[in-house]
């Protein structure tokens, strides 16, 4: 079984190489590195706008006002308004915004956050935490803010914007390029009829598919190592990064195999491959606009994937997201691989 698997892998690597798959992957990675390092500006962040209204007028109101003024001066996305209603009105027009009202309860300041409803927890926590830190440094213990879970999940403020795009590329590469390449590979072999020759050998379908997926993993590694190294050097958690990319590639290529099994040629399947790629790319919006993370985005596996990859490239200590994503993708990979095996059994029995 292993002999056959390695025989298949060798054949697929040679074939992939001669079809310029390796060259294509390296080229795309270098183009991305070029874009990241030289085209995208280092500091252009799309953070949610924060609108605040200071209603509290107690003894600490001056200090609070100072803190907020300073924030407003140093962050372009923080704005002061004059009533709670105004906050709500602005927020209704601009989905990438968050509101904050500082009220007085029992003569003590209390912060009320107004959210759109689909913000992801990470953003909310970050915001609240940073408020709390700021205020605590000025007013010791006098301000009450609900304490929250996930305290270790900090917003990674100090990643230059251009480099923060890298995780998107690494999450996108296996879905987009992997889906297309594995489908192209399958159709090439269908065209050659070589799958028939394989079928009358003792070789089994799981071995055949596993080999194709292995090639995609190797291509994913090459792309990941090249681009990550050229963007952040040695500063990434490469081991976890490669594990994430591996499970991500398995899932994406198994999905590509399943899609390809329904069609006879690449042009028929292209619509579906593109549709799948686009659907799995939607969470990238939330990456840049973290406050926009409705349920239909959060259920897509690329949503945690991009944050896990970011954590691996720019470690902040939140290893939880890495492990939970690896677990999720391992399960997804197993399921999609089993489905792919069934799809090919059915498909080959039919032809």
């Amino acid at each position: 079984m292993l002999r056959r698997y390695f025989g298949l892998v060798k054949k697929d690597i040679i074939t992939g190489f001669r079809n310029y798959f390796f060259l294509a992957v390296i080229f795309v990675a270098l183009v991305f590195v070029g874009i990241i390092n030289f085209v995208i500006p280092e500091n252009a962040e799309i953070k949610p706008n924060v609108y605040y209204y200071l209603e509290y007028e107690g003894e600490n109101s001056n200090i609070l006002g100072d803190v907020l003024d300073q924030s407003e001066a140093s962050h372009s996305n923080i704005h002061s308004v004059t009533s709670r209603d105004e906050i709500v009105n602005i927020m209704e027009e601009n989905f990438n915004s968050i509101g904050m009202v500082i009220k007085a309860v029992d003569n003590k300041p209390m912060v009320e956050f107004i959210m759109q409803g689909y913000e992801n927890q990470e953003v909310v926590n970050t915001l609240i935490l940073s408020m709390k830190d700021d205020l605590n440094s000025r007013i010791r213990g006098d301000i009450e803010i609900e304490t929250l879970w996930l305290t270790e999940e900090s917003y990674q403020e100090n990643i230059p914007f251009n480099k923060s795009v890298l995780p998107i590329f690494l999450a996108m590469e296996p879905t987009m390029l992997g889906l297309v390449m594995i489908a192209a590979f399958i159709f090439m072999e269908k065209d050659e009829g070589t799958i028939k020759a394989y079928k009358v050998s003792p070789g089994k379908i799981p071995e055949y598919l596993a080999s194709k997926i292995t090639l995609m993993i190797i291509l994913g590694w090459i792309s990941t190592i090249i681009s990550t190294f050229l963007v952040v050097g040695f500063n990434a958690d490469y081991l976890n990064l490669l594990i994430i990319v591996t499970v991500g590639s398995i899932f994406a290529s198994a999905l590509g195999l399943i899609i390809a099994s329904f069609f006879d040629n690449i042009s028929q399947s292209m619509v579906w491959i593109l549709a799948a790629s686009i659907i799995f790319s939607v969470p990238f919006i939330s990456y840049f606009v973290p406050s926009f993370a409705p349920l239909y985005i959060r259920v897509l596996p690329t949503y945690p994937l991009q944050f896990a990859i970011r954590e691996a490239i720019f470690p902040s200590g939140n290893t939880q997201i890495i492990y939970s994503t690896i677990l999720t993708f391992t399960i997804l990979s197993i399921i999609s691989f089993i489905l792919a095996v069934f799809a090919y059994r059915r498909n080959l029995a039919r032809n």
Partner: protein
Amino acid sequence: MINVKNLYHSYTNDENYAVEDISFKIEQGEVFGFLGPSGAGKSTTQQILIGLLALQQGEASIGGYDIKKPKEELFNLIGVSFEHPNVYKKLSGLENLEFYKKMFSVETEDSMKLLRMVGLESAANKKAGGYSKGMLQRLVFARSMINNPKIWFLDEPTSGLDPNTASEIKKIIRKKNDEGTTIFLTTHNMYIADELCDRIAFINEGKIELIDSPRNLKLKYGEKLVKIEYKENEKIKKESLSMINDEDKKKLNKLINEGKIETMHSQEATLEEIFIKVTGRGLK
């Protein structure tokens, strides 16, 4: 070695059968041929047996293995040469064989030796994508021998090959058979069937019309023919006359008596002539 009972197959899953009620047995060490015109159902039958087409109706076993539940052992036992060459175009001939070799868990042949046998030695390291049709066909043929198959399926093994190569291929087939390989081959070429097969099934429109040895068929169906050239009005005329048909016999006697005959050969009926007699159509 091969046992087929009441095999039916419809590509459209209806009553429109590509093969219909096919039954035959192949003994160990036998060369069994399917002879019939294009579209008769030869490849369909073979593809069902090797598991590439679903067994819709009927029963079949190969080497004692029921083909409904094909086992790894079965595929180690058989070799298949396809009608339409199917090799990895980006791999060289040698790489193709070396890859295929690794799929088997029985003793395998030396790839280079096989390439030499089919005359592809000098093209061994060339990508198969650059091979001519005949070279591809020879590569597929060579590949089918890689696992020393006990049962060998050959779909039109010589079609499209030049006469010299075809005769090399025939020699290999005969040699393998001498070594004990059981062979199921399909062809629309009466000479191949005649030269190689111990028994032949005539297949037409999805049905087996008869099964017998070439010799028996000729004895049973073939009337002896005499091919003569004679002079008439200063012109040479050619004719085939039957030794059974009364009118032909009379004409032959007359020509002999008149001393007009220039050349004369006795000739057996060909398998194609017998095929026409049995099925009402030719092999083309």
